[in-house]
């Protein structure tokens, strides 16, 4: 199983990039898509129906933890629910992490979720995690070894700063990524020098694409073919050849 994570500052287009990577990878194998952004948009962009999130079942378990029959243990309950909320689509399954944690204790439930999600991911050729910049889900709810982290920037200084911070955080988390790439997205005047100064490996450009913008504007799934999809195809080939 080859795992990718996509991260970056909000608004740079990481969800669109995740979706394009997922679409591209379904041509090569079966993909597990994980939407780890609390503001979950990946299902809409992919056109996938979702019946629940890991956050929902996590809260449900904490609410009813003492009402489950004593011998109906929580690991089995949680595994079943995780399988139930997994959205099954053509070529990929999608798991949505959903809302952030509340004030309760999540030690037990996160420990169980790590095992369930790690085991689940072993069933796929590829895993793609659409991750928020804090990388919280990667550190707390899964120990999937992510080989390639792709950070998106849109040319703004803030997006480069976020990229550098993600790299530092990743180093602190114990360098679980083999490569950390930077991708420049939808910039009109790409400044590759600044991209290289972030310390991340610059992977390439995804041009501004009016078809993508239109799909996002209308809130419909991304088009099957697009200029952006073609460049994601090339970037992925670069990653997979390494």
């Amino acid at each position: 199983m080859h795992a990718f994570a996509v991260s970056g500052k909000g608004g740079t287009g990481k969800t669109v990039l995740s979706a394009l990577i997922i679409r591209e990878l379904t041509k090569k194998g079966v993909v597990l898509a994980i939407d780890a952004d609390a503001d979950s948009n990946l299902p809409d962009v992919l056109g996938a129906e979702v019946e629940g999130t890991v956050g929902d079942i996590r809260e449900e378990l904490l609410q009813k933890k003492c009402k489950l029959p004593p011998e109906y243990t929580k690991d089995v309950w949680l595994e079943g629910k995780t399988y139930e909320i997994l959205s099954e689509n053509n070529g990929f399954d999608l798991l949505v992490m959903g809302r952030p944690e509340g004030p309760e204790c999540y030690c037990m439930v996160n420990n169980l979720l790590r095992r369930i999600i790690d085991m689940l991911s072993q069933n796929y050729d590829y895993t793609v995690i659409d991750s928020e910049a804090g990388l919280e889900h990667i550190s707390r709810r899964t120990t999937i070894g992510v080989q390639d982290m792709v950070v998106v920037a849109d040319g703004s200084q803030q997006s480069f700063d976020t990229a550098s911070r993600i790299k530092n955080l990743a180093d602190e988390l114990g360098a679980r990524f083999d490569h950390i790439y930077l991708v420049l997205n939808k910039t009109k005047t790409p400044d590759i020098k600044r991209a290289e100064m972030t310390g991340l490996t610059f992977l390439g450009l995804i041009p501004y694409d009016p078809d993508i913008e239109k799909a996002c504007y209308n809130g419909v799934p991304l088009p099957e073919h697009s200029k952006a999809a073609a460049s994601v195809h090339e970037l992925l080939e670069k990653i997979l050849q390494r």
Partner: protein
Amino acid sequence: MAKEFPVEIGVVYEGERIRKDNMRVELGGTKVPYKAELVQSRAMDEIEDGKITVKGRDLKDMEEGGRYPFVILVEVAGKEVEKDLEAVIERRIHDFSNYVEGFMHVNQRYDIWCRVSKKSFQKGFDSFTYLGQALIKLFKAELPIIEKIQITFMTEEEDVKPFAENAREIYEARDARARALSDDDVDEFYGCVLCQSFAPTHACAITPDRISLCGAINWFDGRAAARVDPKGPNFKIEKGELIDPEKFEYTGINKMIKEKSLGENERFWLHTMFGYPHTSCGCFEAIAFFIPEVDGIGICHRNYHGETVIGVPFSTLATQTGGGKQLDGFLGIAIEYMRSPKFFKTDGGWNRIVWMPKFIKEQVQDAIPEELYDKIATEEITTDINELKQFLEEKEHPVTERWVEEAVLAAEELEVIPMSEAFAGTRLILKNARIHADKVIIRRR
């Protein structure tokens, strides 16, 4: 086995998810109203060892992509097979059926959800008889106490529905027995060190009468987790000897806590908040705190944002209580622990509880002895310690009986000779004094 077994069996297939695209049929699951799995212990002569029955349509007669009702009934016999083991054996259906290549089993009891893969079906896995053979082989290999075993599968609603309804009653009876399980009934407890990242010297001792502080892991969860990953954060504790039946001190728990706290703590008294109480991580659902002024115990839960009767909010109490320290008079607990028959038993149990927020008082009303319910104060009655004292006196709360034992020295005028050299020669005169003391020493000069 007459024919060669069509698919592989092995632990490697555990966790195998069969995707909708690769699915031959689905058995049970949320979209099918009736399904169940059940283990029943029988007398030796009631079982035909190795018999597999398929009642209803077999796999090969099912439509591709179809969903069907499903029952797995496992009947076992053996000299050591007892009724109480049925649930433990039943749990293994999940493990063992998942060992079969191309068979997915999720959930348990009335929720089971299975899938058979197209690939395994094509390889010849086209009858439930194969599943039965695999289960029988694994059950006998892994659980040698099973001397005889027979398995029945059902796939028609007319059979599955009445079976599932009847099974529900069996599960409920089993739950009632499980809820009544006490520390005295078992030989093993479980430990948990999930919170050591916050509280490195803390470890939870989880027993039938004592759920983890976070309220998330009961004795059954501990047992399940320890079996899946014995070297993981949940592990078995040999109960050992009960050293003190009043303080509930067990050699096994002492050994565990000494080891897991790296020598920081050496003893736990299980059901008390004094002496050598259990430690607290940071994840507890509620805090029990001793109120010396009334010799009683107050309780405050995490979501209560006001001040407690001792003038501080939950957050302040939590800083004091957490971190794996053994602290006389402060203890993190799970709300469910209040339902335990051993709830602070050493300290007097509910007879010692004097104050708690209305929200949890109502939540655990079923556990509070009826005659005590109105004697326990809430924030609506008071958050002032003097008023609490008055309230307890008026309601004749059982803690007031402890008060008479307290030494009260009352005098209109009292001469006190300070003991310290620094005060030599001075005299202290207290007028209209009432002095409360745990101990009064009067020495002849």
